[in-house]
């Protein structure tokens, strides 16, 4: 007599298992197949083409009624199993029941719903089955707004599908880049760019706070306060194994239903496969290993020996035009190495992770043709030592040229601006060269390119070299070992190519390392925030420790805390608060600095936010004694008290400090304002100095009193305090916009020339006002106290150790 086989779930895994079983021995079992969905087996992977309209449901059915009839399968579709009676070996749905000799659980997984307010509103869907897909299609998407929560594989397929039907789609993703489980930041950046190109908005680092609406989803609110209107919200934040009936039946269940290598559960009569299982602590979310499970289980059920061995799987995204490939494990491993190839012009990125001369991980974007070749080498554990040098170029490549460092410049369109001072674009330079200007001087003479501040010289030379057909130009020294581009070139390309993130710069400008280094990352972070104050998200991890922790690190790992004393003026209350903080946190040294304020030295990191909160309470804010930004404005007592004072130098100093504080600059900026030419505030050796005289204000700039000593040079004189403030602000902004990172103003002025500076901040009123306006835009974001931000109850714990294992040791 035939034995009875009952299967719960007609999905991808059990469908494949049935095929193997019935093919090997059609007479072994009578099969009863329950399915929660009111239909049989279809290709779930292909729901995305159905959503986008490229396919219909009929196209993706794998087993139709005729197939089940021909194989004698007793189908109970639309009947979810609600109970397994292990003692009597019967399963029950609400409509019927079936006895079994062997039972297979193949219930797949269920979408994870984030527990936010509004999650149950009509218009909020998940993405798992045909019902979900139809719900999205039926929402009639053309012209409507859809929000997808989750920027993983599923979320992006949903987003692309809805966009293809004409919806205006926004993807909200919690992590820093899309598909972070499969992609590194560089590939994630390229993917985001491709999606944005097709009109999809991508919001990374976005945590959903609530779904808003009255009786219907209307908008999604994020923790950062952003609101996206939404006629439809698709939640695609992850899946978890559907184990409910197994748990109720008291089978062994961890995250999934535990199975051994033969796919048997803790009950010898019950087997499980697919996304609902956990095998050796591993869960599954892609079909390839499930198909292997199907093969093994078919054999197990027929009494043949077989063992399931998971292999690493590769991921592709089924979105037309987004060509990505990812395989392998990027985690762990001593002695790992990377091989990186970037072709900025064509938007290509390839990265191989090697260990012991073997490939252990592959990420590719833009050109994935060689993906399966690398994947094969990886699966086979092939030794790649012999072909290491050319490996990244794929199987077809033997020997050949290194990637082209000038690709970024080559890819610039003719209208891209190269010389900002004179508004010369690439096409003009190319034309000049073609008309016979083959030396830099000649190009300068006929186009003015690089003729003013000169910081674009490197780029101009590269455009010339390209036009001349690769004639060798003396190589400009790059920012660091990660790139051959100079600081100046990178700044300019960030502007002309519209690059708005560090991964964007690394990719488009062909960085040679995976994640930059300690030298280029802080510089890039500054260039990006200076160029795109409103768009760029400051990257804290690309900042040097002092700026990351808003305090100066000391030789023993403690920190110093310097509150701002505007213009060097303080009050008894402030002094008391400082004294109290020094007592409370056992500060080993309290010192008056050379910048007219007080330094609390030797503070432990975990005390910082608490001390800041105390100081904030007394009205004190960060003095930025650690920043490449505005440090101090040193003042003297001036006309308010001094018998020689000509103007209110203290007041002007305070006004300047309140205006300029919080701004980030290429290097630190210090000001001095003296009330008369006796110059008690040492204004004439500062980055910007003001000497007050009877007739007004003498402004001088580019002094130095640190590693070099240099007197300031006269910039302007004006009778009006307002105009003095305006000129100084414009000077600081010009410095921010055009200096190389870590050049103090005196170094920068020496490069661009004081006359060039004067033209822009003194003579040309329109340019001065525009600089001031741009400074104000930036300050609308950055004129804020970092201490307040970091001393909130949610931030404070991040300053303490992650764990304290000494406590456990003491047990």
């Amino acid at each position: 007599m035939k034995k009875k086989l009952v299967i719960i779930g007609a999905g991808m895994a059990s469908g494949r298992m049935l095929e193997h079983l019935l093919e090997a021995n059609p007479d072994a079992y009578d099969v009863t197949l329950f399915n929660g969905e009111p239909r049989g087996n279809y290709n779930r992977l292909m729901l995305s083409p159905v959503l986008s309209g490229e396919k219909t449901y009929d196209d993706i059915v794998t087993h139709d009624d005729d197939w089940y009839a021909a194989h004698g399968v007793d189908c109970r579709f639309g009947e979810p199993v609600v109970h397994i009676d292990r003692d009597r070996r019967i399963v029950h749905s609400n409509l019927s029941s079936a006895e079994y000799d062997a039972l297979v659980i193949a219930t797949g997984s269920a979408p994870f719903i984030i527990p936010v307010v509004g999650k149950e509103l009509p218009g909020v869907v998940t993405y798992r089955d045909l019902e979900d897909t139809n719900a999205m299609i039926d929402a009639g998407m053309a012209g409507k707004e859809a929000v997808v929560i989750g920027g993983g594989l599923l979320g992006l397929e949903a987003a692309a599908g809805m966009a293809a039907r004409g919806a205006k789609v926004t993807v909200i993703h919690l992590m820093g880049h899309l598909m972070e489980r499969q992609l590194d930041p560089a590939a994630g950046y390229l993917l985001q760019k491709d999606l944005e190109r097709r009109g999809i908005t991508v919001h990374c680092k976005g945590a959903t706070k609530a779904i808003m609406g009255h009786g219907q989803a209307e908008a999604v609110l994020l923790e950062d306060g952003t609101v996206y209107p939404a006629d439809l919200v698709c939640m695609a934040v992850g899946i978890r194994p559907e184990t409910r009936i197994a748990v109720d039946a008291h089978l062994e269940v961890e995250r999934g239903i535990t199975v051994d290598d033969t796919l048997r559960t803790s009950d010898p009569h019950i087997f499980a496969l697919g996304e609902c299982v956990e095998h050796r602590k591993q869960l599954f979310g892609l079909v390839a290993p499930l198909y292997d499970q199907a093969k093994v289980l078919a054999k197990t059920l027929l009494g043949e020996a077989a063992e399931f061995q998971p292999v690493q799987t590769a991921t592709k995204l089924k979105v037309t035009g987004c060509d990505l490939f990812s395989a392998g494990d990027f985690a762990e491993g001593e002695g790992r190495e990377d091989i990186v190839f970037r072709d900025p012009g064509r938007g290509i990125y390839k990265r191989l992770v090697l260990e012991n001369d073997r490939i252990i991980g592959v990420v590719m974007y833009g050109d994935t043709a060689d993906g399966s070749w690398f994947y094969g080498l990886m699966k086979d554990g092939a030794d790649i030592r012999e072909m290491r040098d050319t490996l990244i170029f794929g199987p077809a490549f033997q020997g050949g040229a290194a990637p082209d460092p000038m690709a970024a410049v080559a890819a610039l369109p003719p209208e891209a601006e190269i010389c900002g001072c004179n508004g010369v674009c690439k096409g003009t330079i190319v034309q000049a060269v073609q008309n016979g200007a083959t030396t830099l001087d000649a190009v300068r003479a006929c186009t003015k390119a690089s003729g003013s501040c000169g910081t674009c010289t490197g780029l101009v030379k590269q455009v010339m070299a390209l036009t001349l057909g690769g004639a060798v130009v003396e190589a400009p020294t790059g920012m660091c070992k990660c790139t051959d581009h100079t600081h100046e070139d990178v700044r300019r390309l960030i502007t002309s190519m519209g690059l708005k993130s560090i991964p964007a710069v690394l990719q488009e400008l062909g960085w040679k390392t995976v994640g930059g280094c300690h030298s280029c990352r802080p510089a890039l972070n500054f260039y990006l925030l200076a160029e795109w104050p409103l768009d760029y998200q400051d990257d804290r991890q690309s900042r040097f420790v002092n700026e990351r922790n808003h305090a100066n690190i000391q030789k023993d790992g403690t920190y110093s805390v310097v509150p701002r004393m505007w213009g060097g003026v303080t009050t008894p209350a402030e002094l008391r608060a400082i004294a109290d903080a020094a007592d409370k946190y056992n500060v080993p040294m309290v010192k008056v600095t050379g910048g007219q304020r007080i330094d609390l030295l030797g503070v432990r990191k975990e005390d910082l936010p608490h001390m800041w909160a105390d100081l904030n309470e007394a009205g004190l804010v960060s003095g930025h004694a650690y920043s490449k930004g505005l440090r101090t404005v040193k003042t003297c007592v001036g006309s308010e008290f001094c018998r020689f004072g000509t103007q209110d130098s203290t007041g002007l100093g305070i006004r300047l400090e309140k205006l300029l504080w919080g701004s980030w600059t290429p290097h630190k900026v210090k000001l001095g304002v003296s009330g008369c030419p006796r110059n008690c505030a040492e204004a004439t050796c500062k980055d910007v100095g003001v000497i007050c005289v009877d007739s007004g204000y003498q402004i001088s700039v580019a002094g130095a009193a640190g590693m070099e000593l240099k007197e300031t040079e006269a910039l302007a004189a004006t009778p009006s305090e307002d105009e003095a403030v305006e000129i100084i602000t414009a000077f600081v902004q010009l410095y921010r916009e055009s200096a190389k990172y870590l050049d103090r103003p005196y170094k920068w002025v020496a490069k661009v020339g004081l006359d060039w500076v004067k033209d822009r901040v003194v003579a040309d009123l329109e340019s001065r006002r525009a600089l001031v306006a741009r400074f104000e835009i930036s300050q609308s974001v950055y004129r804020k106290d970092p201490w307040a931000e970091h001393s909130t109850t949610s931030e404070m714990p991040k300053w303490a150790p992650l764990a304290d294992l000494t406590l456990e040791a003491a047990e």
Partner: protein
Amino acid sequence: MTLFVDIGALDDIPQQGARVVKTAQGCIAVFRTADDTVFALDDRCPHKGGPLSEGIVHGTSVTCPLHNWVFDMNSGQAQGADQGMVRTYPIRVEAGRVLISARLATRKAA
């Protein structure tokens, strides 16, 4: 076989950043790279004791915040011209939790 103890969630460590774990053998810096690999190293630079946990993380390297020595976090080896080695410890991520060698949770053998 290495036994592991849970020290916290992966998300408690910023990407391209680090957190410190206190142990009876001193502070351990636990790093998380841009692609979520984790490393555990002594939080003491062999040069002059700088806290490596405060360094800039790039790829699988970290730069000491005090004088810019660069260490490969896989091996703990100083890169380039600098000579030195930081001790590394077994660490891994499982289901979003960071697990570190349980040996660090026990007292140093006397």
